[in-house]
């Protein structure tokens, strides 16, 4: 199975899961709450508040800053991550072979 085909299938499956979920009455409650926390309480455990409870616009602020920093880092490393355009690669190879011949 090619990478492109597998990623497309994953995308289609994800879209189908989200679409179907939009039409059924559910709150998208995560298993962290619906199973982990509920089960822990059933078993006699307690759930404490998070150490740092980031809520409201502070969460938006942090995500925006983190996204910006992450974006700059990916942009800075773009070519080592995703390669150079094919044309530049060909030109580089041509220059290298020219130098060899010279």
């Amino acid at each position: 199975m090619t990478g492109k085909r597998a990623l497309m299938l994953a995308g289609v499956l994800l879209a189908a899961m989200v679409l179907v979920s939009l039409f059924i009455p559910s709150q998208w409650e995560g298993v962290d709450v619906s199973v982990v926390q509920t089960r822990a309480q059933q078993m006699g455990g307690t759930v404490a508040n998070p150490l740092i409870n980031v809520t409201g616009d502070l969460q938006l602020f942090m995500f925006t800053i983190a996204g910006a920093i992450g974006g700059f880092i990916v942009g800075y490393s773009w070519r080592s991550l995703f390669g150079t355009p094919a044309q530049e690669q060909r030109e580089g190879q041509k220059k290298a072979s020219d130098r060899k011949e010279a």
Partner: protein
Amino acid sequence: MHISEGILTLPVAAATTVAVVPFVAKGVSEIKKKVDEDPAVKPIIGLVSAAVFVISALPIPSPVSGSSAHPTAIAIAAILLGPWAAATVTGIVLMLQALFMAHGGISSWGANTLNMGVFGGFTGYGIYLVFKRSNLPLWVGLALAGAVADLTVYFATSATMAVALHGDRSIIDMTIATFVLFLPSLVLLIVLDGLFTVGLFNFIRERRPDLAARLGIPVRAES
């Protein structure tokens, strides 16, 4: 899969933290070695870490259960970076999620890292290695690695909770009872993570054979 703050008893929280530290430390030294050998892998490690952070915090709705669960992407992280480095990446990711997103907790960091980074990562990597060294189709191994690693993480989460909170009840019964509750949310999620693992692995191999070679991925297209 994120065990919240305060759920685990002190002995279990301490024991899991002590157990996971050697894996994280070994991962740090593996990452340092990789970067010293080839500095170009540094942004790749960063990108894989960012992917694990996003994917493991992403709630994927399940039409089967009406709730949502997180995929882990731990199998592909372990395959691309190696299982030790993946454990370190998981530790960093789960610490950030615990601090800023109320996903997991500081007291449960050791258990969550052990379940996802060590049990999930090594299981996924082990399945990949078995298929890589045999004549079986590699894409099947990758799909299984992604799916089984997720199941392992959720099973280990159930077992950790059972160990911490079983009281005078059977740990095995409590583990199974909790794991069964996860299953409806995981049925489609593991298929998704399996496809994602196959897709990303083969995509890198087909589009960036130079990167694949750097990461120790077999470059020849086998499937």
